[in-house]
């Protein structure tokens, strides 16, 4: 589904990703772990198409096509979703209005019929029930005045509603208490599907107790330096990221 090869990305004059390779197949859950500043969020942003993230080398192929050639809204319509680490507050834009506009814009681009407000609300109610979210969230402006946990849950709610094929979660676990973390994990697990893939970016192993990954990758200094199954995450938890650096030095010697 997603194939990243030799990806080099520069942000504000500084090269952050330095030859990243990653292959994600449909149905898989990949965890990307790594220390702060390794380039984890850069990976999320560059896949979603944020301006200012300049690809200087490498390719990203999604569903057989060049993902990097698409505008952010085209990527969204083709099924790419980024759950933001810091969801943006947008005063004056009603959450429900925004979500319906977004969903219908995607559907229009895909040549699917738009949902009328009744169909849309029905879908909203279903997803709210799964995520144990309050209706009240819908009537507020997008993320305005939401607590940190509410913002993250709203990201997961948007994901549930938009039903992407490739969901990238950028530190969705950061700042969450255990209940909110479980809710986020339940939301993701409910959506696991042979046709859908997840890239879960996280700093801590804790989330992976609830979202069990098929693969774990360690991202350090702009590259995937280690890949393995979920036990890699447990070893990282035990030894810390310094352990990876030491192994690299040992391997090079």
């Amino acid at each position: 589904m997603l194939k990243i090869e030799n990806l080099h990305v520069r942000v504000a004059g500084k090269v952050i990703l330095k030859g990243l390779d990653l292959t994600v197949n449909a149905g898989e859950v990949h965890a990307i772990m790594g220390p702060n500043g390794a380039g984890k969020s850069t990976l999320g942003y560059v896949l979603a198409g944020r301006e200012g993230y300049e690809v200087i080398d490498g390719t990203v192929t999604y569903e057989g096509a060049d993902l990097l050639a698409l505008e952010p809204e085209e990527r969204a319509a083709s099924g790419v979703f980024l759950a933001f680490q810091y969801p943006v507050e947008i005063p004056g834009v009603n959450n429900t209005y925004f979500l319906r506009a977004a969903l219908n814009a995607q559907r229009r681009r895909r040549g699917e019929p738009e949902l009328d407000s009744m169909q849309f609300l029905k879908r909203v109610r279903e997803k709210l029930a799964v995520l144990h979210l309050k209706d009240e969230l819908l009537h507020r402006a997008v993320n305005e005045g939401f607590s940190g946990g509410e913002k993250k849950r709203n990201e997961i709610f948007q994901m549930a509603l938009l039903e992407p094929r490739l969901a990238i979660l950028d530190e969705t676990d950061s700042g969450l208490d255990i209940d909110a973390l479980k809710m986020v994990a339940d939301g993701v697990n409910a959506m696991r599907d042979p046709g859908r893939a997840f890239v879960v970016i996280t700093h801590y192993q804790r989330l992976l107790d609830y979202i069990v990954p098929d693969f774990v990758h360690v991202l350090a200094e702009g590259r995937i330096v280690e890949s393995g199954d979920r036990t890699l995450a447990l070893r990282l938890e035990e030894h810390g990221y310094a352990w990876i650096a030491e192994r690299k030095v040992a391997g090079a010697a």
Partner: protein
Amino acid sequence: MGVALLDSLLGDGSIPDDPASDWFVDVRRRASEALVRDGLPTAREEAWKYTNLRSLAQRRHARGDEQAASRAIDAATIALPGADGPRVVFVNGVYRADLSRWSAIEGVSFQSFSEVIAGDAQAERVLLTRRFDSKAQAFARLNSALVLDGPVIRVAAGVGVPELVHVVYVGAATGTDIAWQARALVELGEGASLRLVEHHVGEAGQADLGNTVSQFALRAHARLDLLQLQTMPESGTLIRRSEAVLEADAQLHVRTLELGGLLVRHDLAVELAGDRARLHSRGVFALRGRQHVDTHLDVRHVARDTVSDLLWRGVADQRSRGVFHGAITVAAGADGADANLSNKNLLLSAQAEIDTQPVLEIHADEVKAAHGATVGQLDEHALFYLRARGLPMPVARALLMLAFCRVAVDSIENVALHEHIDALLLERLPHAAMDTDEAQSGS
């Protein structure tokens, strides 16, 4: 004086020939003399620093419209969704009973200004004999000198008016450039409440000068909800002055939308004269083309524990220019005042300009005061967030701009009116036009 505008309007020394009483003829004469003596303000006048009147001063305008009482006006021009109740219409400054609908409301009276000045008007004299002492108020003087008509609305003590009262000022095309005046007086008795719309519209292509003064007097515990909606064509000039005096515990909630006009100047002066009086002001301008809109707020806290809360937004595209001057003065003795002013602006083009100037002057103790003003561009991060959810760029931009402006009008409860204003704002904001603009600048 060499000011063509004043020569054309006052040059022959005559004042309007209407059945005004002697006392108002005096008002006119005094105002006319002051105006001839001092002329129009220049850019050296601090209050007119950003609005140059030179080209307006060099124009000649005919005094009023002789056919104003009979001109045909399209019903769609004066309609406003959500305002289905009492309506009074003025065409080029002249009352039009045939276009108005006023049925008796218990405790509310409506008269046209021309009737009031024909009588002795004991109750209104204080307001109507108000002198405009500063040269900066030249247009208010011009209004006093030449005004013929306008709405005079009084609400008796204790009366809460359920209907939304709609006052429409129509600038109608006459085939020549005219200058028209209108004067509004609105008095709310003790504990009275009223919802009022001041609606400025015009016919396409007219390049007239409209010059209005509205005076609002709120007795103790009165509440006025005022919507000022200005959607004139982008060819006309409108100079307006809104003045309000609030007695103890009175509340003024005013929302001002400046969407049209080529040259617009609005002075909103509010005096919080009684203890615990409150002003809540929301406003927005959304400009394009070569529009120039200058808003001056002048809020005076005179009594104790008074509150002013001002939230204004501005958007300027193409070669337009917006000016915002927000002055709050807390006078000596107005202890416990709470003053808040926020003005945020969006520049959508490199040729557009917005000048914002918050001014806070405090002479009292235990005052809470905050003010802030910014001029910026659309938030790139928010734009990316919306696009990452699938919204196309032009839609995402329009949505953010609408949201930016909407903060200033979101408390309008009348659903039809609120939707209409949203639609007006959206129509003003460059969304569908965005792609063609970019294509043009690239060629």
